[in-house]
């Protein structure tokens, strides 16, 4: 009787092992193989879909590798006081991917060119300004990005009260840091492009450990205008 019980238990165990060997394991491999195929096909099909979308392209942009610069250091102490203005008609409006200034944050040792436009090329050459934000001194929000592993590596060290200095050919501007924040890259509350007062927003990627894949968080620094010549829109 006992041997029969042990025997049937062995048979059940054997069946279980066979079931695992012949069903579960292949199933697992099929799922994993399907996942790999999906990823590979996604890469291939994704390209094809992208090319199909290019049916609209008549003349795709050919961006040159050069970064132009119109930045010239202004005379020392030029127009740092509030109340001083510069005629908008007297400055050269920077074209896309053009260096037109310099950003310095002495408290953390940041010192890099300011580029109008935030293309990949611009971000390799300095801090890039989003073209849907306004020129420094125009009287609105200037939104500026730079790579965490290049020009804004030390941005997360910036504290409220620190000074951000932006030097352009038409004047030197100072902004006092009034706050910092870590937000998702999809969080539109992180910036306000409709403000009508002079202010600056700097951002870079934020992570505590070396990331794998795209970084979703950004570190923002918000600065309010302290000094520098405002651009006179009527002149």
């Amino acid at each position, binding site marked *: 009787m006992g041997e029969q019980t042990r025997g049937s238990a062995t048979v059940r165990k054997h069946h279980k*092992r066979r079931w695992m060997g012949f069903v579960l394991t292949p199933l*697992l*491999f099929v799922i*994993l193989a399907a996942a*790999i195929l999906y*990823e590979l096909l*996604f*890469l291939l099909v994704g390209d094809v879909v*992208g*090319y199909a*979308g*290019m049916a*609209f392209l*008549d*003349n*795709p*942009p*050919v*961006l*040159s590798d050069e970064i132009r610069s119109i930045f010239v250091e202004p005379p020392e102490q030029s127009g740092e006081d509030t109340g001083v203005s510069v005629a*908008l*008609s*007297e*400055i050269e*409006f920077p*074209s*896309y991917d053009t260096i037109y200034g310099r950003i310095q944050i002495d408290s953390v040792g940041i010192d890099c060119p300011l580029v109008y*436009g*935030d*293309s990949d090329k611009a*971000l390799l050459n300095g801090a*890039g300004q*989003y*073209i*849907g*934000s*306004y020129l420094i001194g125009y009287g609105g929000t200037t939104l500026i*990005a*730079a*790579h*965490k*592993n290049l020009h*804004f590596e030390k941005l997360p060290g910036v504290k409220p009260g620190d000074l951000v200095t932006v030097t352009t050919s038409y004047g030197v501007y100072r902004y006092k840091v009034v706050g910092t924040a870590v937000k998702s890259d*999809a969080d539109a509350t*992180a*910036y306000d*492009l*409709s403000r009508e007062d002079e202010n600056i927003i700097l*951002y870079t*990627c934020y*992570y505590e450990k070396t*990331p*794998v*894949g*795209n*970084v979703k968080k*950004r570190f923002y620094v918000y600065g309010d205008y302290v000094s520098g010549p405002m651009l006179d*829109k*009527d*002149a």
Partner: protein
Amino acid sequence: MKKALIAFFSMALAVMMVLPVSASAPAGLNENEQRIMELIRSKNPLAGREYIVPVSYANQAENFFLQVDVTAEQADEIIGYIQKGIDKLKLRQDVIRAAGGDVFNLRGLAYNDKKDILEYGQKACAVVGLNLIFDGTNVVITDAKDNSKLYFSDAPIIKVTGMETSTNTAMIVGIVLAVIAVGGAVALVIRKRRQMA
């Protein structure tokens, strides 16, 4: 930027640049440009809702106008083109799906309607020597003679500013490692059980 943003807003900006404008030193917006900007920044009723051009789009238009001079006649025509675009959309409002908030999604439009709007914008841009393209992901407007001069893009506002390891590559590597690990574990279990038997 929201993926659901409609191409129309891009087209509208292209339409605004429809007439020859003379390049000039930057100056504030003249009366004509202000009229156009007022229209761009206004709320427009459509499909039972009100839509606005995203601020980031409007700011790009304003930055463009700072670099040119638009005459009264040109402004009238530009405003006419914008109105024409809106009227066209109104004819198709039954298929316009509201994406929520104040931004509409025109994915419901027929292919030909979208194509018409795009071609309309392209032709309008060509008149002023600008080039509008849609690369399958983004709409961009550049100087037709110098593609490095970009005036508009509907690409996301917040850029990638960190390491650029491909997510797909990372996933593939992860899956391959998982397969190897699971395969190794299964082989080990089978081997042990055989040894025990």
